[in-house]
């Protein structure tokens, strides 16, 4: 009974874990650098909901103050994640610039071929 109630009450964490694991799998298992970057972005967005979802209160509303509402979701994780999104796009663009340079230098962005090139 305890396990079932835990399953229902924390289903948001299971969504997050699924997304996180698939991001991790892409980063580890796929050799293509573009795909690795997409996987990294996937991992990153799973962290966004990991932060945002505990801030939600049932029957609450967005944290914009009005007289006719009393329950607001927590604004604090929203602020942190706004920063994280902007930093995320900065790191993504840096990664893409690296991909372009690697492609210019070696003519490929496949990890296996790059290792062969080094040997």
């Amino acid at each position, binding site marked *: 009974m305890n396990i079932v109630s835990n399953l229902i009450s924390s289903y948001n964490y299971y969504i997050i874990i699924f997304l996180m694991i698939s991001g991790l799998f892409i980063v580890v298992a796929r050799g293509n650098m573009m795909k690795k970057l997409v996987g990294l972005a996937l991992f990153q967005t799973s962290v966004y909901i990991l932060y945002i979802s505990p801030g939600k209160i049932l029957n609450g509303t967005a944290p914009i103050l009005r007289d006719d509402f009393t329950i607001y979701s927590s604004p604090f994780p929203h602020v942190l994640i706004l920063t994280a999104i902007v930093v995320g796009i900065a790191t993504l663009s840096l990664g893409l610039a690296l991909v372009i*340079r690697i492609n210019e230098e070696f003519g490929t962005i496949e990890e*296996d071929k790059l290792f062969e090139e080094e040997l």
Partner: protein
Amino acid sequence: MAITTIGIIKLRNLFSVVILSTIYSFLMASLLLIFDAVDVALTEAAVGAGISTVLMLSVLHYTKRNEEKPKHSSILAILVCITVGGLLIYGTYGLPAFGAANTPLHTHVSSQYLLRSLPETGVPNVVTSVLASYRGFDTLGEVIVVFTAAIGVISLLRKDQREN
């Protein structure tokens, strides 16, 4: 969302992977809207679905469109993923239930922000007042990170320096 994620794992055409990640970002934005994070949803739709798609497509213009089959098997990766996933699921047993109002997150600093934001800053949107007023240094640090990334991109892609 799960379907798009599996599509991103399986597909080898990078163009469709990028388009799928755009769809994923839109789904993420609507999920954030459900979680009452309107500001974050707006930013995710603009940045995640807009700017990163444009950037990735312009990089795809320079590189090959298709991914090659990996030579080594991915058993090790699957093992790593199962281990991490198991640990994370174990971790959820210590976390509060979804939608509960009596968690430390709501009882400590957030309620103070909600109470004091309007009298102290006069901004009804609490996210804006925290971002720009209470945690202004955080935002300054963010600007520095973006600036550093821009310097990195420019120095990586500059043409004239490389020809020497």
